[in-house]
């Protein structure tokens, strides 16, 4: 029988409530909530100081660090590109085949890399395919993004909750899971997810407008689609342009007509590309501008400029491969997130001109310098490609247009692949602990100079580390004070004893709900001690209960709260309702398949 409710238990419950509340309202960032827990719990005497920080040295945290470094190494050597290029060409031109092939690839990558990393890696390739084959990007991105999340359930290192699982089982002295113990369930989940989109895609996915792009090239003369941010036009000012008129500046044209001046001629025959905002437009000069056709026409009519049928003076500048208008997406962990372009002094610092920002179904063209950027926001930029490359290398933006990969180390690709295989062999073949094996792989990559130690440090996402490390003591406190056991008994007393498979289904539902409102790691840490106690009390297998939590906390499709969904929302022009439509179906399938596979493979009934 469970203990009486003690003062410590109440304190722990209050702390859980505070954590959940802060996770939901997001007054402070989730990782800061975790650090708050890490500091408050020992101050309240709910855990010892050693226990408070034990999370940072846990297997989970070390494994995550190693997985991130290995992922960065693979990314840098373009192993993934080498993998995706032939797959993409093999997939052909059918949308369904492309979805199947890329989804399988991304699920595979995601099974040993962070989901968001895998999703970010293939995003440019998908945008390219959508553009070249004229398949609406809306039809491609969501299935592939969902596959990246589902792929995280294929191995025990695929997602943070699963990496964390074995550490959470330690206090219960339960046998840890092996790297591939979850694989049958994971594969079934990936397969059913992809199958669902292939069969029902046309009903649950927005079908898009077919262009798949928000920029138009010079040759395009098609009628203006609402999503088009603009095209390039050349204008000429008359001899009398500056007579009886207040000076017309580049900035004025941008503010008044939302038309960007990209080039300006100066008599006798100079050309200024990317003229300053304050530059004055003189008489008898040529302008290269970027804007919507209707607005350029209005500008030309109101200011009496000649609108040329096609660029003449600037023809070479727009067709040359050195400069252009390209689309890019704000990368996960980009230094631009949470800042405005103005705050970053973007144009001056990076030497490119931002023309528009698109987010979900909105396009921002006015005062874009003041827009607070989010991950997944699309930016339309104009400037020299070498500058774009700098933005790409600095992980500021993901570019749909392939940029030069000169500074990467493709020759090290084999080495990188070798260290990954070695790490996996150590886990599978020799049963060496996950963290040790993965760190060996990461170290190997550094020693063989696949990436430098500084690059390795930079690649680590400290938010994830502190989120994991900081929440582990909350799990410890829940268990140590007997709070988990108390709640578990209270719940079971209320519901009565149910068959194990029903209990697991309830746990799967509970985890799904939790993961929609709080982070998947938070949900795992809070729920695992609870469900293990519930399973013990109900005479069900506690390991299976924990596994269901570890899997179902990846069941985050209904709202765009999962990082992968947030990343794909902008480029896919999705609205929240699009995620709900497809997400509800996939979430139900997820639970059915998970429970079904556990029933089938692990004999729980």
């Amino acid at each position: 029988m469970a203990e009486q409710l003690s003062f410590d238990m109440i304190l722990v419950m209050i702390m859980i409530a505070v954590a959940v509340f802060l996770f939901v309202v997001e007054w402070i960032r989730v990782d800061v909530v975790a650090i708050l827990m890490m500091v408050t719990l020992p101050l309240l005497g709910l855990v010892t100081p050693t226990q408070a920080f034990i999370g940072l040295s846990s297997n989970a945290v070390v494994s995550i660090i190693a997985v991130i470094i290995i992922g960065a190494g693979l990314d840098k050597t373009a192993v993934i590109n080498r993998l995706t290029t032939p797959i993409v060409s093999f997939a052909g031109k059918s949308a369904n085949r492309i979805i199947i092939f890329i989804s399988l690839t991304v699920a595979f990558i995601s099974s040993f890399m962070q989901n968001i990393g895998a999703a970010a890696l293939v995003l440019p390739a998908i945008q390219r395919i959508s553009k070249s084959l004229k398949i609406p990007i809306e039809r491609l991105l969501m299935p592939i993004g969902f596959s990246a999340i589902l792929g995280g359930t294929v191995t025990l290192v695929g997602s943070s909750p699963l990496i964390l699982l074995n550490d959470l089982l330690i206090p219960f002295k339960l046998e840890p899971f092996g790297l591939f113990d979850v694989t049958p369930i994971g594969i079934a989940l990936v397969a059913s997810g992809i199958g669902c989109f292939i069969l029902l895609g046309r009903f649950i996915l927005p079908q898009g407008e077919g262009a798949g792009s928000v920029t138009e090239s010079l040759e395009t003369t098609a009628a203006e689609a609402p999503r088009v941010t603009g095209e390039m036009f050349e204008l000429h000012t008359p001899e009398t342009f500056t007579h009886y008129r207040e000076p017309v500046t580049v900035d004025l044209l941008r503010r008044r007509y939302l038309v960007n001046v990209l080039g300006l001629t100066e008599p006798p025959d100079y050309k200024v590309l990317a003229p300053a905002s304050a530059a004055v437009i003189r008489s008898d000069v040529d302008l290269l501008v970027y804007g919507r056709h209707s607005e350029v026409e209005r500008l030309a009519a109101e200011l009496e400029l000649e609108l040329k049928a096609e660029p003449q003076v600037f023809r070479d500048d727009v067709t040359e491969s050195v400069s252009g208008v390209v689309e890019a997406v704000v990368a996960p962990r980009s230094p631009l997130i949470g800042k405005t372009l103005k705050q970053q002094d973007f144009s001056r610092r990076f030497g490119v001109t931002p023309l528009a920002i698109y987010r979900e179904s909105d396009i921002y063209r006015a005062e874009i310098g003041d827009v607070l950027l989010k991950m997944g926001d699309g930016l339309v930029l104009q400037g020299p490609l070498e500058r774009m490359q700098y933005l790409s290398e600095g992980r500021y933006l993901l570019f749909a247009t392939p940029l030069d990969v000169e500074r990467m180390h493709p020759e090290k690709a084999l080495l990188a692949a070798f260290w990954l295989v070695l790490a996996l062999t150590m886990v599978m073949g020799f049963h060496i602990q996950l963290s040790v094996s993965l760190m060996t792989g990461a170290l190997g990559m550094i020693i063989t100079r696949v990436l430098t130690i500084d690059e390795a440090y930079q690649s680590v996402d400290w938010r994830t580390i502190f989120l994991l490390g900081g929440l582990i003591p909350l799990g410890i406190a829940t268990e140590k004070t007997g709070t988990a056991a108390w709640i578990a008994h209270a719940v079971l007393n209320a519901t009565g004893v149910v068959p194990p498979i029903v209990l697991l289904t309830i746990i799967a539902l509970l985890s799904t709900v939790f993961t929609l409102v709080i982070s998947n790691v938070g949900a795992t840490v809070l729920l695992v001690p609870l469900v293990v106690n519930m399973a013990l009390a109900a005479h069900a297998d506690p390991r299976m209960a924990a596994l269901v939590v570890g899997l179902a906390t990846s069941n985050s499709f209904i709202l765009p709260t999962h990082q992968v969904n947030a990343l794909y929302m902008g480029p896919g022009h999705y609205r929240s309702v699009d995620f709900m439509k497809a997400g509800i179906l996939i979430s139900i399938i997820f639970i059915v398949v998970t429970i079904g596979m556990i029933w089938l493979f692990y004999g729980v009934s």
Partner: protein
Amino acid sequence: MAIITISRGSFSHGAEVAERVAERLGYQCISREVLLDASERFHIPEMKLVQAIHDSPNILQRFQFGKQAYIAYIQWALAQRVRSGRAVYHGFAGHLLLPRIPHVLRVRILASMEQRVAAKMAQARISEREALAVINKDDEERRKWSKALYGVDPRDSSLYDLMIRLDRLTTNEAVELICLAASSPAFEVTEAARQRMDDLAKACEVKAWLLDQVGDIAVTCEFGNVLIYAKGGDKQAERIRKAISSPREELADLANIEIRTAGPIPDHAL
């Protein structure tokens, strides 16, 4: 030609000065008409509008947008009235309701407390003490209103181009001074100034129309390009999107309209 706003405390002869300036310059003189226009257009009793622009918001109202809505209606009506210039407005808060318009001459008329008390006593047939209390209360109410909604004290001289004390100057002399100031080239209506006025009117129009449908928002307009700042985040943005998706008279001659959910709201936004 200039737009002149005359603000004053109660019983400071502001109305008299305003009427005579308008007469001298051949301008229209506006005060209560603005409230009547707003009342008619938005079907709000005039009394409510008077309360909105006169009484400072109480604790509860600070968290509602009702008062802001009424002020948006009044601002809309004022912008429509003075759009063509040649106007003297001596209703409430004229100096605040026409922000960033270059050809607005902002005047404040002051009278000594003795003069004001005497005027109140004569008008309401009350004792000196009562009159003083009424005037003090009224001044305090205005100060609180201005502080709560615009963060400024109406006594701050930087809000005005001209402050005239009627202790020793006569109303005639005050009228002379104002007319002289209004003829300054600084208050000429340039193309840019006219554009600002049009933009203000459009921003007011959009804000007044959207407020009761979608809740509290901020609006800016520059060259007909409207930005709507959704203070209530994504959900409110969705409501705004829906509202502006169908063609409306209020949206007719806008060049571009965008909705912002995050990021700084500019100080000059309505």
